[in-house]
């Protein structure tokens, strides 16, 4: 099976680097996009999203990516992000309360910061099991 080299890089460190067979992420205005090995060279800006990296052993690595860029060239997929978190690093309960706070704020008035916070919370929750389960939990 063909594989490709995937790197998730934040300014502070390389979050993930390894072989993978598929990467699904979401670009600015373009919706979700999946990269398979041998994808044409691609450059895109990302929005807050739940990125899924399918590793060679079939397991899926969930990453919350809060904006950034994706570059595909040759057999390498690089995701550059100011703030990206691996699912295992996410504090789900914090994300939940952040989502509630943001929703609360948005109900009162439209606030850019609150909208951004909500998008971040959604990305985190999706990466750790989905917003739906979260709704059921509280």
């Amino acid at each position, binding site marked *: 099976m063909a594989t490709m080299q995937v790197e998730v890089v934040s300014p502070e460190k390389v979050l993930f680097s390894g072989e993978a067979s598929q990467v699904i992420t979401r670009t600015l205005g*373009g919706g979700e996009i999946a990269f398979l090995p041998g994808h044409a*060279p691609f450059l895109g800006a990302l929005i807050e999203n739940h990125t899924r990296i399918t590793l060679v052993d079939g397991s899926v690595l969930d990453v919350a990516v809060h904006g950034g*860029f994706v570059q595909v060239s040759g057999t390498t997929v690089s995701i550059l992000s*100011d*703030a990206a978190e691996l699912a295992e690093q996410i504090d789900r309960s914090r994300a939940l309360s952040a989502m509630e706070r943001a929703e609360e704020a948005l109900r009162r008035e439209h606030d850019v910061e609150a909208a951004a916070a909500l998008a971040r919370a959604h990305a985190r929750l999706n990466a750790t099991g989905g917003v739906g389960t979260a709704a059921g939990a509280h």
Partner: protein
Amino acid sequence: MAGGQERILRGRIRSVQATKKITRAMELIAASRIVKAQQRVAAAVPYSEQITEVVKDLAAAGGASQSPLLAGRDPVAKVAYIAITADRGLCGGYNAGVQRATEGEIKAGVLSGTDYTVIAVGRKAEGYFRFRGYSIGATYGGFSDNPTYAHAKEIGQRVMEMYVSGEVDRVELVYTRFISAGSQEVVQRPLVPLDRQTVSGGDGKGVDAAGVAADFEFEPDPGTILDTLLPRYVEARIYAALLNAAASEHAFRQRAMKSATDNAEELIKNLSRIMNRARQDSITTEIMEIVSGAEALGGDAKKHHTIALGPLADDGFDGGLDLRSFGAGAGATRTMNTPAAAAVGVLEPDDIEDIVGIGPVIGAHLREQGITTFAQIAAWTAQDATRIGDEIDFPGRVERENWIEQARELQARKYGN
């Protein structure tokens, strides 16, 4: 009294030792942090390399960005200087270097009619420029030894806002670049507007792979990606500068604290030497007092001896050795002066110049030979008489003037024997 000086010196040594402990601890902490800071600098490299690569790919693909960050302005009316220093001192010339470089740039700019504003990063820079009355645009502090990307982002957004709104026409970064633990240098780098040379890819992958770059799919269009990318690029550059500055700060602090520790050691050594001398002096003085006291008391020397030596001997210093030899000396002096010894008469000199023929010159010569009494001369043999006559350059004079006979008479007259 000397004891007072000793006590003062002891206090100073203690305080220097306490300071030394602090500087030593700071040195070790800084040394361990250098390594961590270095790792962080290294960890930030992949991101900035990748982002530079992306920028170049975009530029190669003809991503015509209308981003104001790329548009240079002419003439430049106002420049913002981001001066990155530490929050704390005790790091040698680290802060001063950046401050001086920034100040020099500002002064040169003002001379050529360019206005300025200082963006002080680190409390030391803020204090320095505020105290000197420079105009300060923004201040950041509290993270100099451990900056995060969020800090870089905050600073970046502020300066980009200043630039885009037209408040400033250029932004310069002044910070200390970390080359290695042993070498750092203050550098000044233009930040905004972005260098078109860099962005349009001078040496990157974008150029030789121009054909490949053209094949890139973009989503959304290259111009929009570039517009969102450029602010990240600026932030990444600020972040790299902050990390470099933090690593340099630790390196400077480690060096400064090492020399402070060395100086403290030197100071302790010198002070201890002075203190020991003072202590030795006071011991010597005490011994002199005891000895002279013992001499003054004379008669009951033995008793005095015991009393005086008791407390001193307990002192436990090597001065005890001196004490014993001093005691022995004192004893010898006493023996010579006792009246009993004088009664023997052997050593009591006579006035040998009473002998007719012995004047001051010959008398002095004889005394030099140890001849000081009539009895000695009376005891001369004929050979002695000839030898002495030759020695004093008057051969036969001893016999001619009957010195031996005269001496015998004088001896008899003086001692009745």
